[in-house]
């Protein structure tokens, strides 16, 4: 890692009511780094992103953004800092047009010039959105909706992009397309934290990876080393 952490989690503990979801998770994300957060269902991956984004207040522990503590701040405040989450299940605004979805992605910027530039960039990355700008987003296919969700997040010029299961429920061909786009973003220097069940795809693009199991960190290593140990991954991911 070069330079100080963009995002740092220290001993995070989180719970839904009486059910513990995280038992002391620590991780760091350096500038320009792509980190994968892997693990089976219920390992606490989504919970981790929810805590970072302020949707869930941790029981204990800290979230630091460029050294400043942001634990427990409201989600809108955290988004305005540039920590943008592309949530699980896409969560696009189905009643709004594709264009309206994208414009809202740039909500935090309040800058029409940047908005135009970002819109162009997002449409370059996902050209199929261009022909559908004025369609209701709910009419898009699942894969198109995922691309819209990523494009919408990019409209915010994220400092850190948090991606929750970008490949979930997509056809293999579309998964390829999505990960190609993510690779392009990585090449442009975007800092990303990717939660995935598809460990193989995630490790192709990630610099480092953390493996979670039942809310605990069980493995952390460089992605290329983990790629060489598919058995290990299989054990933890249960496949």
């Amino acid at each position: 890692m070069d330079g100080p952490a963009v995002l740092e989690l220290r001993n995070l503990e989180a719970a839904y009511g009486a059910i513990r979801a995280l038992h002391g998770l620590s991780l760091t994300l350096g500038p320009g780094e792509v980190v994968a957060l892997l693990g089976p269902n219920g390992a606490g991956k989504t919970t981790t992103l929810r805590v970072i984004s302020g949707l869930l207040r941790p029981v204990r522990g800290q979230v630091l953004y460029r050294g400043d503590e942001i634990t427990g701040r409201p989600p809108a405040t955290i988004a305005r800092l540039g920590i943008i989450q592309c949530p699980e299940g896409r969560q696009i605004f189905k009643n709004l047009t594709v264009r309206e979805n994208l414009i809202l992605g740039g909500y935090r910027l309040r800058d029409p010039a940047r908005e135009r530039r970002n819109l162009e960039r997002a449409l370059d990355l996902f050209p199929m959105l261009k022909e559908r700008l004025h369609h209701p987003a709910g009419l898009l296919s699942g894969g198109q909706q995922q691309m819209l969700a990523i494009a919408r997040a990019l409209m915010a010029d994220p400092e850190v992009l948090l991606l929750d299961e970008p490949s979930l429920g997509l056809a293999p061909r579309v998964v390829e397309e999505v990960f190609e786009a993510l690779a392009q973003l990585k090449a442009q220097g975007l800092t990303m934290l990717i939660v995935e069940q598809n460990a193989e795809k995630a490790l192709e693009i990630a610099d480092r990876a953390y493996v979670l199991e039942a809310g605990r960190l069980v493995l952390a290593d460089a992605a290329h080393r983990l790629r060489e140990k598919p058995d290990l991954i299989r054990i933890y991911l249960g496949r």
Partner: protein
Amino acid sequence: MQALSSPEFWIQQLINALGLGSQYALMAVGLAMVFGVMRLINFAHGTVMMASAYIGLLLLQQGMPFPLVALGAIAGAAALGVLMERIAYRPVRGAPDVVLLLNSFAVAVLLENVAILLFSPRSRPFPMPEVLTRVFHPGGNLFLPSIHLWAFGGALLALGGLGLFVTRTRLGLAMRAAAENPTAAQLLGIEIGKVTVLAFAIGSAMAGLAVLFWTAHVGTINPGMGFEPVLKAFVACVIGGFGTIPGAVLGGYLLGALEIALQGLLPAGVVGYRDALVYGILILILLVRPGGVLGYLEAERV
């Protein structure tokens, strides 16, 4: 009864339906906006209309010119809506929806009783300027009450402006986004609290505008006057598809047309049951299209 075959009869029905429908649309849109951002059927919406009418009457008694009275009543409604959100709803955000609903009843009862204390329960005349009460006779047996023109023009301007606001501005888009998916909206930096206040302000202002026309129609105001409008607004929302602005507008005009049609077509002995029939038809609509007219289309699309 007039001959059903005369075009005059139908033109008259259309005029009446557009006039009444405009009022219902303005009332319903505020209910829909608040429901959108809060999942609350705000039964105090009608009480805001009542209070707005009394604010108007007080201003009128101060000798203010009518345009200022109207503006004051609308601004008063907006302020009251914002205050209501602040005091009665925001503190219980996150509580089960039924808590919000109960609070809205509490606000309604409270405000109505405050009005009874301040102004007595009796109806009071609300003198309207002649421009609002005049009736034109454009020819034949046609009646064109100017209040219908005002209501239609006012609704066109206000609802058109609202339409532009929610499709062309950053804040308006944010409001629709927050109504559809508050979590996703927050993740983009949209503050739910801010758009909620805005929805209350705009929705209540629309109600303030509507009650001016309503009052010009009825001629008097009283502390219990908010009940019927809020019920009508609710029915309009249900017909059109709950929680969406286009649904509320469409529902408002459909309800207006339905009432006028029943009024005009029912034999004299049955006209008194008009409202019962309206609610009967409402039940039928819901049996066929549980999501309302627009809600049904929505469900099919997804």
